[in-house]
């Protein structure tokens, strides 16, 4: 009952307003979790290729960490970028700790996005684009360094702007542009193998 009331109350609130409300009442945090649960889970999945159970564990850990550190959130920045940043760090450290198997990190219905990545550059060789085969593309993406994979996932699958990627990865905007361009080149190279 109480949760339903909270849920209704937070429908029209911005993330930043919800952060302020959460500081007073932890129940409001459920609104933020519900708002980002799927996105964060999907991002972690794309980055790590973790299986469902591990994915849920990491997501839960991310939200707990975010709650504990909520007072460090800078209201001038976007909450989503801050949360993605925590998710990114948590995934990387989890991945390093457990050496997750990177299988199924990209689902086959996301192949269109991969084609978008490759087709985005006009100077990309068309033959690579047209010969793109599902399994091959997934494996190519998996073989990329984590930094390249992260920028590609954020830019093309999560639809984040350069500014947001810069905030998430704590890199200057110029570096983000360079990373994306290099990542695309690497992906093409991997596809050629």
């Amino acid at each position, binding site marked *: 009952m109480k949760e339903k009331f909270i849920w209704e109350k937070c429908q029209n609130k911005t993330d930043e307003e919800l952060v302020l409300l959460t500081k007073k009442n932890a129940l409001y945090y459920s609104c933020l*979790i*519900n708002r980002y*649960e*799927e996105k964060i889970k999907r991002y972690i999945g794309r980055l790590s290729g973790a299986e469902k159970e591990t994915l849920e564990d990491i*997501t839960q850990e991310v*939200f707990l960490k975010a*709650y*504990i550190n909520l007072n*460090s959130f800078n209201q001038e920045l976007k909450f989503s970028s*801050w949360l993605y940043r925590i998710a990114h760090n948590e995934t990387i450290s989890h991945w390093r700790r457990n050496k997750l198997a990177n299988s199924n990190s990209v689902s086959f219905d996301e192949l269109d996005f991969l084609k978008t990545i490759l087709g985005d550059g006009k100077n990309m060789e068309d033959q690579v684009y047209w010969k793109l085969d599902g399994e091959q593309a997934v494996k190519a993406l998996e073989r990329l360094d984590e930094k390249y994979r992260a920028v590609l996932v954020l830019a093309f699958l999560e639809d984040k702007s350069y500014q947001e990627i810069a905030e998430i990865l704590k890199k200057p905007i110029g570096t983000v542009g360079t990373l994306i361009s290099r990542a695309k080149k690497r992906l093409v190279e991997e596809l050629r193998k």
Partner: protein
Amino acid sequence: MKGEISQKVLAVIKKEKIKMKPACYFWLCSGFWLILATVFFFLSVFWAGAFFHQLSVLKGLYFLDKNLYLFFLSFPYLPLFLLLIFVTLAVMAYRKGRMVCHHENWLLFFLLSLAGFSSGALWLEWSRQSDNAGLFFRQGQVLKYVILSPDQFWSMPEKGTLKGEFISFDPKTEKLLIFSSTGEEWIVETKGCPCSQKIPNRKGTFLQIFGLQKSVKDKVFHAQQIWLAE
């Protein structure tokens, strides 16, 4: 299922009585790492000073052009190594603070570094005025123990370096007489050396000479460059 995670997270928060870290924790945490980064940064500046001081005392840049062997011998490896170590530690401390405390504090880091520089400069000036010692003198003292000392470096006639106390100069023969730091009298020929301006008038002045050893037995050295010893 949507909402499942929020329920789980809220349950954990309630069950384990998890509290948010207070805002002051992040300021203190951030301050700690920033101060640590600034200390390392300041130490790196100190060693950068030591590096350039050593390079200048041993005329490293001159030897880079004239004598590669002496350049590599005079190169301040240890100060450079320590400089790199401290720069790395400063960067690591800054990044660690950023990671652990979730704070971006470039401005604070800049202000702290500026304060560190200013206090360092004031201290240098104060020690210069009070006991004529100063930072570089102390660096020299430290360097003596950790790197080839300038006295040793300038006492290798066979390699082309000679240091000693000026005794006299004969303008006719263009030869000067010095009493080396190893306690020997050396005749230094200056013919063809663009160093006539550097020859002192006062006895007892210390000179550093770069050139060629002509005779070990007669202790004759041919100068190619002369500096007043630092």
